[in-house]
């Protein structure tokens, strides 16, 4: 293998699995160390810069970082990254002094944001400090988009939402609420310098089965119903409720129903339990509230008597694997009938922009999604950019922040007369040695073997009575600092200097995870099998040195490295050093002077 180029930013970025997996590339270990040190405000600001909504995301994020956490591979459960983010938000001090300053004098560029959800807000946050005039339009009476309308208060309290949304709105957005956008042409006529479409995926899917039309008034589309609960239009639901669907919206619907007075609530899912779209913890929370989840039951027919819904007939299927894909075949058992008075349909949603005329230069693909440049998020109309769910279909809030940063850079470049693609700044990398003394490191190198800490919950009865009672109470400072210690500090990298190595084997002997091998060089496939421990995880790189004095090379498997620093501790010549990698992901802030 060729020697590894550790100075290419993506090499060490990939070693920080959580940061690599986070769409917004939040520097997770860095803020977790801040939490461990009780520096909550700084931890919050690191988050705020990357993902814009730490308090909201600390409660609602889909957590792509957690399955990626190295701890999953070294033992069992990941660090509770999301809940730690919330610790930072809950305990932070005054952040005013750290916020970017918005200049009083505006530049002459005007930007229109369509929709007031997380994507638009994040674009505004990035653009406002550069003097842009930002106008935002939304159909709802307040900003926040789906964070406000679709996430129930028992998961995301209103004050947390409002704090972070208002912070951005008050930076100087000219917001126009209760404004339904009906024509893109009309918007273009307003002659803005750039448009950002962040209108989400507002259309909930429906099911056209026998009896559907007859029972229309007893069926609600999940996201619409949640929205009407959020804005106080719906305050109760009566009788027996069936929630159809297996995603997070279904979980929110069933738990909301339970709180609004439903006699019984049942979730019925077409697919198996393990493959449900809902996050594991959402499923757990729903079940712990006494809501049954029935799997492998696709609906067949809505049954009604004189226009009144009486229940639903479901087929019984079972999953089989065929060519590596799951397929569902009938089990032969008789169909089941489940009684109900109301159905909440939560079987997915689509982005849907009927208000964008198809003759104004924005091209759409066969799934009715706009054709975008994946890097710049520019549509085929040079002035129009997309982000969030309206870009590539339903994702989650953290993706909206990630898109927004990229779109903001594109908009800025375009407004400066530069090319949004070729003039983009590259990623950067800094490596800073953590060595403080002979055996002292600037980070807490010691491995903490604790199991993942459980988060305390509110009293069950109290929380089921009131939709506004937040279920998860979050870690307090003590639990938070303990959980923070579980972080392996994967951003503190093992950096190897060939010319200092005397090949004494001290690092090989001490490494608890058998990561390091000195061996004659070979092709990657071969190397992976002849290391001290085999390295079958192809997603994790091998770190290969230049040739050493004996003609061998040092090969380190990054897969299960604990970043405990023992290789560097036991190295007599400092050929190994622990260096903190700081990955610079360009944001509009990188341009600030």
């Amino acid at each position, binding site marked *: 293998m060729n020697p590894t180029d550790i100075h290419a930013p993506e090499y060490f970025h990939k070693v920080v699995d959580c940061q690599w997996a986070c769409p917004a590339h939040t520097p997770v270990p860095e803020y977790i160390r801040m939490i461990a040190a009780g520096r909550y405000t700084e931890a919050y600001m690191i988050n705020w810069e990357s993902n814009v909504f730490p308090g909201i995301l600390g409660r609602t994020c889909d957590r792509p970082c957690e399955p990626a956490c190295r701890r999953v*591979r*070294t*033992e069992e459960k990941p660090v509770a990254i999301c809940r730690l983010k919330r610790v930072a938000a809950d305990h932070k001090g005054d952040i005013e002094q750290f916020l970017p300053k918005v200049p009083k004098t505006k530049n002459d560029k005007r930007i229109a944001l369509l929709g007031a959800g997380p994507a638009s807000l994040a674009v505004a946050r990035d653009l406002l400090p550069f003097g842009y005039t930002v106008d935002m339009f939304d159909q709802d009476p307040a900003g926040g988009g789906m964070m406000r309308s679709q996430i129930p208060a028992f998961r995301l309290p209103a004050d947390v939402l409002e704090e972070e949304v208002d912070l951005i709105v008050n930076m100087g957005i000219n917001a126009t609420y209760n404004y339904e956008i009906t024509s893109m042409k009309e918007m273009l006529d307003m002659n803005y310098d750039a448009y950002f479409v962040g209108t989400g995926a507002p259309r909930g899917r429906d099911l056209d089965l026998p009896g559907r039309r007859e029972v229309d008034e007893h069926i609600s589309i999940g996201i619409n119903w949640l929205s009407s609960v959020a804005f106080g239009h719906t305050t109760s639901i009566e009788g027996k409720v069936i929630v159809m669907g297996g995603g997070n919206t279904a979980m929110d619907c069933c738990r909301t129903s339970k709180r609004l007075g439903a006699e019984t609530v049942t979730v019925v899912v077409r697919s198996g339990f393990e493959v449900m779209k809902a996050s594991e913890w959402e499923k757990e929370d729903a079940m712990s509230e006494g809501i049954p989840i029935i799997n492998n039951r696709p609906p067949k027919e809505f049954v009604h008597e004189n226009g009144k819904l009486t229940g639903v007939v479901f087929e019984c299927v079972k999953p089989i694997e065929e060519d590596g894909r799951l397929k569902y075949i009938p089990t032969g058992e008789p169909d089941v009938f489940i009684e109900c008075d109301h159905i909440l349909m939560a079987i997915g949603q689509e982005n849907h922009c009927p208000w964008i005329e198809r003759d104004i230069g924005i091209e759409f693909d066969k799934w009715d999604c706009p054709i975008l440049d994946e890097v710049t998020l520019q549509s085929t109309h040079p002035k129009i950019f997309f982000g969030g769910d309206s870009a590539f279909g339903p994702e989650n809030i953290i993706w909206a922040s990630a898109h927004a940063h990229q779109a903001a850079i594109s908009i800025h470049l375009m407004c400066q007369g530069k090319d949004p693609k070729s003039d983009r700044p590259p990623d950067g990398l800094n490596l800073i040695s953590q060595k403080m003394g002979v*055996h002292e490191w600037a980070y807490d*190198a*010691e*491995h903490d*073997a604790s199991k993942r800490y459980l988060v305390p919950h509110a009293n069950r009865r109290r929380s089921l009575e009131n939709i506004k009672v937040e279920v998860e109470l979050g870690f307090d400072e003590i639990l938070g600092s303990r959980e923070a210690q579980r972080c392996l500090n994967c951003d503190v990298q093992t950096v190897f200097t060939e010319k200092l190595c*005397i*090949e*004494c*084997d*001290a690092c*090989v*002997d*001490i490494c*608890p*995870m*058998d*990561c390091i091998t000195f061996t004659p060089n070979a092709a990657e496939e071969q190397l992976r099998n002849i290391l001290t*421990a*085999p390295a*079958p995880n192809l997603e994790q790189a091998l770190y290969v040195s230049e040739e050493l*004095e*004996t003609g061998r090379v040092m090969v380190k498997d990054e897969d*299960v490295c*604990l970043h*405990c*620093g*023992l290789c560097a*501790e*036991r*190295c*007599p*010549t400092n050929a190994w050093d622990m260096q903190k990698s700081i990955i610079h992901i360009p944001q509009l802030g990188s341009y600030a002077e």
Partner: protein
Amino acid sequence: MTFVAKPKVHHPLLQFNEIGLTRRDYEGAVSTLCAGCGHDSVSAAVAIACNELAIPPHRFAKISGIGCSSKTPSYFLGASHGFNSVHGRMPSVATGANLANHELHCIGVSGDGDSASIGVGQFAHIVRRKVNMLYIVDNNGTYGLTKGQFSATNDRGSTSKRGVPNLYSPIDLVSMALQIGASFVARSFSGDKQQLVPLIKAAIMHKGFAFIDVISPCVMFNNHNGSTKSYQYVREHTASMVDAQLVMPHEQIEIEYAPGTLKEVDMPDGSVLRLRKISESYDPHDRVGALNHVQRAQEQGDVITGLLYVDPIASDIHEVLETPTAPLNQLGEAELCPGSEALTAVNAGFR
């Protein structure tokens, strides 16, 4: 010294041996020797070898004297028996331990000071007595604990860290062991576990006195340009004579060698010691030839390594003394104290 404890967590694919243990179960406390010390590699090699032999750790007795080398039994086989004895007197204690319980695998660890200076008499006599043990010398040619004076194995002309040359001839423990009658003699290098681990395995399974002289650089005081025991010097001047590989009874023999270069030696437990000659002129069963070879190489400044001599039909101290099959420490009062009639009979024999 290292202050960060080695985490208990291990590689998810770490192999279990036949008795359900992993290499980690054969480790000891974290070393307090200097970072990069060759002795730590020797300790790691012992742990690897014992794990591969799949002998439970509590069936080993580790015995040592005084010095950097003699601290190392703390750093491997944490769950075995140990005795850190008096300077140069490890052989006496090891002899006693082996006499009391020959069922334990005895590993003695000593250094060049402990065995070639203060304990040179003890060393000579334990070789003579054929104690069934593995005797390792971590040989770095210097007194590390007292800041780098020349030891008795340091080559004449080799310099100290400050450039002062050594004026005295070295004691070569390998030559001594060969000459006095050790039945298994090897030399290796701490930086070459590929060679060292199989040697340790074979030495542990050898019935009789097995001696391995391991050149183990002292990174603090004897790893400079004028040293003949530095990582660089040893790597540049080393020549392996015979490659040894212990094949356990249950293991398949996989590698095929060219005919004539391979010799197989049956071990008492049913395993096979495979010797691959690297140098055509070398015969590992010829004691006098081996002695010549070692001395000649020494004269030329070369370090020959590998299994230098093995006697396939060796005997040990218990055979010489005709002790009973059961370990002495397991005999009851009746066997150990046969009564006054037996004593009278013994005394009568001397009249």
